């Protein structure tokens, strides 16, 4: 199986879907001539031309609104946000118009748009460029939210997202773009809403997603080697729809849960998970549910300290040991 980067995996998904469906259009800042701010869309302009790969001005509310309007008439736009952090200037378009138009029209309209781009900290760009809004997005019924952690998942989930008839918000990670992994060539589709056991275990369930999956796997390695603890790492992959059944299945096996997320803790994805686990699997729990989140402050700039603000293997390990204590 070919080994490619996460960046290439996203690009392959885009190219294959552009090839498959003439209504797919890629649109965003610097996606065409510049070859993508993070080179995700590199080469697509040369291959598909300016009708399909469209550079926009720095005008997120405007071009995302255009994408939403076009999607109501049958276009399937894949919009790139250079950073998901910029969703704030297009909030009304994303979370009033895209999220609500189906409902407010009594189901007469659907909005098959994908908005994708990186949403992560860890790159020393300060608070304005380090938002992780998956909880904010998922708080809006009508939308779907995907956070892939591996190249294979990035490709398979993006292909599903582009074919989906609901608005799908796809959160990538600049720290993962260079990560390599095996990815099937050609048709490889991962359904939305299906979690994946990235490492099986019996003593502790680490529920996580996005880049935190990598940290959790590293910590699980140490747990096994130095603490004789078998940790299961469950990658949610999709936040909404949520594969809660896989979470509950794992909890029934291990009876202990640590949630790891690159999220501010207040009303996070982990908050929702912890509520659901205690509500639906209370009798399976041998210990309180633990959570490791981003340290609760705006993203700090200082490079060595930002590492400590975010989940990292050391912090995951420590939290796991506390969960097991």
């Amino acid at each position, binding site marked *: 199986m070919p080994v490619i980067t996460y960046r290439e995996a996203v690009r392959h998904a885009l190219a294959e879907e552009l090839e498959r469906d003439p209504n797919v259009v890629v649109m965003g800042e610097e996606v065409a001539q510049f070859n993508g701010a993070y080179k995700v869309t590199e080469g697509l302009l040369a291959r598909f031309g300016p009708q399909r790969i469209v550079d926009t001005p720095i005008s997120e509310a*405007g071009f995302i*609104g255009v994408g939403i*309007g076009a999607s109501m008439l049958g276009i399937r736009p894949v919009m790139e946000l250079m950073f998901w952090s910029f969703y704030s200037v297009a909030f009304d378009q994303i979370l009033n*118009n895209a999220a609500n138009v189906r*409902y*407010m029209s009594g189901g*007469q309209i659907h909005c098959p748009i994908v908005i994708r781009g990186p949403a992560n900290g860890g790159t020393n760009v300060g608070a304005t460029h380090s938002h992780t809004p998956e909880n904010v997005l998922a708080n809006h019924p009508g939308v779907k939210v995907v956070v892939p952690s591996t190249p294979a998942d990035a490709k398979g989930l993006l292909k599903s997202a582009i074919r989906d008839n609901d608005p799908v918000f796809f959160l990538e990670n600049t720290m993962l773009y260079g990560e390599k992994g095996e990815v099937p060539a050609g048709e490889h589709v991962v*359904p939305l809403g299906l979690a994946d056991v990235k490492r099986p275990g019996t003593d502790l369930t680490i529920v996580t997603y996005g880049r935190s999956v990598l940290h959790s796997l590293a910590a699980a390695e140490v747990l096994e080697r130095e603490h004789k603890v078998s940790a299961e790492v469950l990658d949610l992959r999709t936040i909404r729809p949520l594969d809660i059944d896989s979470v509950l299945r794992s909890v029934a096996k291990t009876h202990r849960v640590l949630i790891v997320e690159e999220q501010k803790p207040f009303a996070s994805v982990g908050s929702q998970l912890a509520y659901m686990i205690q509500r639906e699997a209370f009798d399976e729990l041998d210990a309180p549910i633990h959570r490791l989140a981003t340290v609760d402050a705006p993203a700090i700039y200082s490079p060595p300290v930002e590492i400590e603000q975010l989940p990292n293997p050391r912090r995951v390990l420590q939290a796991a040991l506390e969960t097991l204590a």
Partner: protein
Amino acid sequence: MSKKPTAKEATPPTATDHAQAPVNARLSPEERIELFRKMVRIRRFEERSLRAYQAKKIGGFLHLYIGQEAVAVGCCSLMGPNDHVITAYRDHGHAIAVGMDTKPLMAELYGKATGCSKGKGGSMHYFDPSRNFWGGHGIVGGQIPLGAGLAYALKYKGLKGAAMAFMGDGAVNQGAVHEAYNLASLWNLPVVFVIENNGYSMGTSQARSSAGELAQRAAGYDMQWGQCSGHDVYEVRAMMDKFLTLARENGRPSTVEIHTYRYRGHSVADPDNTYRSKQEIEEYRRTRDPIQLFQDKLLAEGVLTAALAEQIDAEARAEADLAADFSEASPFPTPADIQTDVYWEADNPADRRSQGRLFFT
């Protein structure tokens, strides 16, 4: 009052000029009467809805279009099969103008399952994609990028058509509107941005909210623009025909500012006694009422008789009453309906490809 009467309005072209514009001259007597009938139907529908609101049959906001009827009717009467409409929350007139049945429109106000949005949208959120009507949007200016997006889709598909994106005079100060202007001009999108300038953004007059001429801002985006009176349906049609043709034939966007006037408050909840005088409203009613003006024209043209005008009015009142009766008799949606029409996939389970839980408790 606002700075609304512009130099253009102070010396209006004669009514005959607009009637003789080709787009109007070719109208058959029946088509002229249909324009008149639509305006009357909108007004009687809204007057009936106001009574229902006062009787506490309708919740939330009710933004009435009374006084502005010639704008929606004039613009929408020019629609071809590939022309599309999107507007803001004062949307009843546009909905009737594109041909929606008044029964589901009234039922939507009553919050009934038979409403055009099944009671899920309310007054501000009417939609009918089968008539190229894309809402009905609640946030000032938020619909304008969507209107540019409709035009984008037309262009992408190679269809000869235009989108009309309506907004009020208050919307021109919203950033989303300016972003849409820029994109539409930059990308040669076939859209006409229509500013329905009724002089007041809620309770703030144009003079107190907006610097400069509203339509002229389009020039900054290299767009053509125009201004006209919205009290004469012929004038609206003549002006809009020019810019719709520019969009359809040359793929160029434009902005048209149509001067109009609303007789009622911003919404029914607006006491309407802080920002304009009763005399001002009366003056408009007496001298520039779009229905009265058009009735007078059609009588002069010999197209309409007093008897027919009365008959049309009686029919419009009866239609509005029928819509209210229909709404009254219709069932409310049930609590189980709250969670339908949220996700396409949830509503089409046989075609669902995703897994996992979509709804939470």
